[in-house]
């Protein structure tokens, strides 16, 4: 890999992040569009997390020994009970790695 390639990658990722900050862009975000975009955070983050947790679900008895599925469900339950993000992250990671070594 060359320095040029790293620079090109950097330009691409920066462009994706900066694109809509440009004033020249002929787009006006009205209230409806803003309302639509308010669904971005929950939907994208979920779409990234769901295949990790449920991606290997087989709908068979194998599922009870799937650490991704079990610890993922525990993470959901914990986030309903506890407001502290750090606690939820560390506790469910602890559960995940214990299950992974035990099962």
């Amino acid at each position: 890999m060359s320095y040029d390639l790293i620079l090109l990658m950097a330009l691409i990722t920066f462009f994706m992040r900066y694109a809509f900050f440009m004033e020249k862009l002929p787009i006006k975000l009205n209230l409806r569009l803003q309302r639509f975009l308010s669904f971005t955070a929950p939907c994208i983050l979920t779409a990234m997390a769901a295949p990790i947790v449920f991606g290997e679900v087989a709908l068979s008895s194998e599922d009870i020994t799937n650490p991704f599925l079990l610890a993922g469900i525990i993470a959901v339950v914990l986030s309903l009970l506890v407001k502290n993000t750090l606690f939820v992250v560390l506790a469910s990671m602890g559960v995940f790695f214990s299950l992974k070594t035990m099962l």
Partner: protein
Amino acid sequence: MSTQPARSLRLAAFFDILPLSIAVIPWGILCGSLAIQVGLSPLQSQLMSLLVFAGAAQLSSLTIVGASGGIATILGSTAVISSRHLLYSATFRNSAIALPLHHKVLMAFLLTDEMFAVTENKRKELGRFPLDYALISGATFYVIWNLSTLAGIVAGTSIPNLESLGLEFAIAATFIAMVVPSINSSPVLVAVLVSAFCAVLFHKLDVPNALLLSALIGMVVGYSLDKEAL
């Protein structure tokens, strides 16, 4: 709306992004060690995290380099993987557009999944866009990402089994911990469930651009159920 003093907002930015930064440490280490393993120099490996600053895009490009893939494949996958940031950029457009250029550039540079997630939560809570909060949470994440990359570069090839550890669970756990408390209405709940279902289905069926597609379907469904939007 809120009278939260600026100083405690800055502290909140640091502490809100901290758990997400911790969960990403293994990924930074993986990025650094993988870069060395596929033949990048230590300086190149670090520059990748310093300049590109996009975990998923970095990891996939390193995997492509490892498989002797071409430049076009690397740039193409970088563009596809980071295209979700267009949505983040659009979400913050109205708040960012009036900012001075250097703030806009800095904010765009620091606009990761994690910074977007905490800042969007804070923005909804405050009812206004918290620029300091965005920059501090973004910068905190940047520093931790680069330090963990450095740790991976130093460790180099001595941790070859890192990939089999199931590190992706750390990412899933942080996103779950971010999303679940932010579900405050039935349209959001339905949107999230639809996105989750589509993402798993598309993953099983190997549908291209599954991430963006499943997120957009959830967003459309959620929006159409949203009475306030009408």
